[in-house]
């Protein structure tokens, strides 16, 4: 026995399970050494993670792996543990408990954490050897031993526990049949559709099912031999596992005269009807509800520990609970209600039988109140957060079923970072996982998104994971991180892109120096982030007037070629609408040989890429290409790249219009323009859409009736399918609408916004209102686009190859040999 000083309050804990010991842990955190603690446990073990028994049964974990607190923990914290000596009586008047071993222990405060016991139906034969429950280590030992010596098992109960037991036994080589009273499996957590998918998948894995099967008796002589159902079917078995459910273990509390319904009745502070006695875990009933899942138990442990420690904590609030099935390779998630309760509720479902994916969301008053996921549970945490936050999902509703990536993480809710495993990838571009970000934050004391970016590179590339990184940061810092509503352009200023653009026009700022001075830039020269943006904004605002600053351009736009990893460049001549001819191909072949260009490749934009050109050779290469009529393809530009086409009505038997010809007209109209980010177009000659117009910034799909103009598509990191802007009848209209759309994008999008991001932000309705509904505005946009094109449609290669522009760019200052 530990020496216990008598002046400490004595806390006796009945139950050495997860809820009881978590409460003790929480108490030790809050008030270490405050109590003299004695724990009684019915099982002859230290505290272990009961949830993982199914993993032990399946052979995925060893018993040692699931121990939560080893002996040493009890010793270190001066906790007296009586394992294998269950309490059999409580005397609330005398404030003592009595154990089966005859020990009488006085208490000042008593914590009941007796958990639950398997539900045992009145079926004959349950006392035969070979029948067990699935509740504790002893049961698992019985099952493992049976699997080693016998072949056939029957599990009675097709709920969460029963299926995990069945799967574990199957993994151990037994042939397993599941008897389930209801028509579909896990009917408490899954709707019928998901339950059927689950049965189909488990059936493929060799489990047999007897649904709507009521067990009449378990038969056998001296040992179990099988199960007989009420409809006469017999299933032979060497092992029968009863897993039809659990009920709170309340017998002690009842005998002691405490208030008991289904569970031991507790208030919001988890006290029972006796002020000195608390109850937590599966044995407790709070506001009419009992709990069989772990999440509420953790909350109970905290609230109870507050009270035991004499702290004034928040009351226990029944949380939403969610369920996952622990069968490797089968992904099931369920939370909240399973089906619409009445006309006021709506169900949104997605089902793909071929891939075995099923999702159902139940919506009530624009709040998500139920989620059932089968086969793809990637968004489970997000949906669950939306439910817990009672977030308004009205705006997200059309995309909600497709998950967070599609519906966006723009509303307050986010995934449960705490529940996310450390190896969850947060940043796909740079391969940074949650654990690495948390480690960097802790080790280096990071407090801002910029610092996390700098140290881990997470969200430093495409930025689509920025929201997630901020949530990881907030989680690691234990609170909210201030997120500016409008991000600043860079560290030189606090102003966002839109504010700077507005000021450029409103104050007639016409040089970068003017902008930086007028708007209080912190660095006189700006930086590598803001200079290209300002250069673009000024170019767009003052066409023909602002002088382009090449030293504010990224090297590709300065050298009119794409820098490669070894410092060489790639050269892509324009092929209008993807058309070429023998003379052009010959010139390309000649250039490749003459300058020993190592790689010649066909691009995705229907042109030819010459890779590995030395910088000093660029003007000569361009000069040779120019002679064959080839000009820059601007493959390096935040500007018009390509117009991809199919052969259309000229050759194709399905073609409805001259898509190639229209593509060339579009490319001739748009080439040379600078835009906030790169712009790609495509024209398909019929709705078969061979030119893939529906993932382009502007796509045109020809029909018998005319042309569908599509906008805002993207085939990059985050695929976005275009929206239909308008249907028109003539090529002239296509040109005007396309140019007007690009001018609107040029004037209003932020630098480095693709059209997809911008359209997603401002909305299709806005684009339609400005371009389709307002014809005057469309024509004005078109005119401004044409005006701006007057100054830029000069081949930059010809200027440098033969007109002496930027000659110094391509020569070393000196050669010292």
């Amino acid at each position, binding site marked *: 026995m530990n020496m216990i000083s008598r002046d400490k309050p004595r806390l006796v804990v009945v139950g050495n399970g997860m809820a009881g010991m978590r409460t003790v842990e929480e108490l030790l955190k809050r008030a270490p050494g405050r109590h003299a603690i004695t724990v009684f446990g019915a099982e002859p073990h230290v505290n272990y993670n009961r949830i993982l028994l199914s993993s032990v049964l399946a052979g995925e974990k060893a018993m040692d792996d699931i121990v939560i607190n080893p002996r040493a923990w009890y010793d270190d914290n001066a906790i007296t543990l009586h394992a294998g000596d269950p309490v059999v009586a409580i005397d609330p008047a005398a404030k003592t408990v009595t154990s089966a071993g005859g020990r009488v222990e006085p208490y000042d405060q008593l914590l009941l954490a007796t958990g639950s016991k398997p539900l045992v139906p009145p079926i004959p034969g349950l006392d035969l050897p070979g029948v067990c429950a699935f509740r504790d280590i002893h049961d698992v030992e019985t099952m493992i031993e049976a699997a080693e010596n016998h072949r056939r098992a029957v599990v009675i109960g097709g709920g969460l526990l029963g299926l995990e037991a069945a799967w574990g036994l199957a993994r151990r080589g037994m042939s397993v049949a599941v008897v389930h009273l209801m028509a579909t499996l896990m009917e408490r957590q899954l709707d019928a559709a998901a339950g059927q998918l689950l049965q189909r998948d488990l059936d493929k894995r060799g489990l047999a099912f007897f649904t709507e099967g009521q067990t009449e008796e378990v038969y056998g002589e001296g040992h179990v031999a099988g199960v007989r159902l009420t409809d006469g079917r017999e299933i032979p078995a060497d092992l029968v596992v009863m897993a039809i459910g659990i009920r709170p273990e309340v017998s002690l509390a009842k005998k002691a005269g405490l208030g008991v319904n289904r569970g031991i009745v507790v208030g919001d502070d988890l006290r029972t009807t006796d002020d000195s006695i608390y109850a937590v875990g599966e044995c407790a009933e709070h506001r009419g509800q009992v709990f069989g899942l772990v999440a509420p138990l953790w909350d109970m442990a905290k609230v109870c520990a507050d009270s035991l420690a004499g702290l004034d904590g928040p009351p226990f609030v029944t949380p939403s609970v969610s369920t996952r099935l622990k069968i490797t390779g089968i992904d099931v998630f369920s939370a909240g209600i399973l089906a619409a309760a009445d006309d006021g509720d709506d169900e949104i479902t997605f089902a793909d039988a071929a891939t075995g994916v099923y999702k159902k969301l139940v919506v009530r008053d624009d709040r998500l109140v139920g989620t059932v996921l089968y086969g793809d549970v990637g968004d489970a945490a997000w949906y669950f957060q939306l439910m817990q936050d009672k977030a308004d999902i009205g705006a997200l509703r059309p995309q909600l079923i497709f998950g967070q990536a599609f519906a966006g993480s723009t509303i307050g809710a986010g995934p449960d970072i705490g529940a996310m495993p450390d190896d969850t990838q947060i940043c796909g571009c740079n391969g940074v996982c949650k654990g690495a970000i948390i480690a960097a934050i802790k080790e280096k004391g990071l407090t801002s998104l910029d*610092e996390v970016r700098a140290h881990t590179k997470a969200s430093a590339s495409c930025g689509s994971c920025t929201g997630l990184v901020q949530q990881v940061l907030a989680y690691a810092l234990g609170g909210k991180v201030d997120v500016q509503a409008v991000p600043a352009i860079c560290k030189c200023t606090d102003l966002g892109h839109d504010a700077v653009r507005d000021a450029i026009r409103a104050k007639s700022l016409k040089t970068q120096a003017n902008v930086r001075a007028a708007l209080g830039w912190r*660095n006189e020269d700006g930086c590598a982030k803001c200079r290209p943006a300002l250069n673009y904004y000024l170019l767009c605002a003052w066409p023909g007037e602002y002088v382009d600053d090449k030293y504010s351009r990224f*090297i590709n736009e300065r050298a009119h070629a794409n*820098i490669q990893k070894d410092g060489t460049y790639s050269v892509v001549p324009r092929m209008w609408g993807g058309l070429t001819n023998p003379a052009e191909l010959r010139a390309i072949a000649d250039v490749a040989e003459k300058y020993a260009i190592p790689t010649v490749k066909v691009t995705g934009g229907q042109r030819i890429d010459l890779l590995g050109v030395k910088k000093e050779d660029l003007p000569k290469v361009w000069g040779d290409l120019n002679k064959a009529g080839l000009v820059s393809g601007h493959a390096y530009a935040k500007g018009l790249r390509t117009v991809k086409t199919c052969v259309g009505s000229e050759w194709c038997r399905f073609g409805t219009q001259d898509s190639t010809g229209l593509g060339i007209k579009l490319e001739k109209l748009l080439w040379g323009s600078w835009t906030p980010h790169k712009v790609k177009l495509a024209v398909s000659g019929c709705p078969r859409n061979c030119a893939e117009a529906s993932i382009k910034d502007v796509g045109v799909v020809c029909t018998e009736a005319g042309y569908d103009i599509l906008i805002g598509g993207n085939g990059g990191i985050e695929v976005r399918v275009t929206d239909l802007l308008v249907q028109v009848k003539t090529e002239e209209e296509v040109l005007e609408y396309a140019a007007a759309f690009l001018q609107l994008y040029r004037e209003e999008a932020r630098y480095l916004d693709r059209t997809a991001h911008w359209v997603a932000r401002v909305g299709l309705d806005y684009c339609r209102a400005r371009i389709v509904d307002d014809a005057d505005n469309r024509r004005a946009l078109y005119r401004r686009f044409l005006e701006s094109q007057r100054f830029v449609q000069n081949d930059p290669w010809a200027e440098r190859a033969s007109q002496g522009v930027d000659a110094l760019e391509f020569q070393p200052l*000196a*050669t*010292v040999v």
Partner: protein
Amino acid sequence: MARWIDIGRLEDIPRLGARTVVTAADEIAVFRTGDDQVFALKNRCPHKGGPLSEGIVHGHKVTCPLHNWVIELESGAAVAPDVGCAPRIPVKIEDGLVWLAIEDREPVLST
């Protein structure tokens, strides 16, 4: 042994830009900042060897064109948290001419 070599006039280097000097062993990037100071570094980013001469110059720093590391022109050191250093080459301006101290036994200059 290092020798001071005249590599050209200050005006031959664009303000907020850079030019390269090719030596037998190496390529050197010579930067001119907004305040008309000149710095020289080996033309290889300490990260993945990117040509620093092609980066955007701002203040007394250059941003590498390959992966946006920022390098201090005076020291050649990468700005934290990145770690690394591009070797410095001594440089001076005299009478509008830019001189580099180049390790080269028998230099022959041609422009």
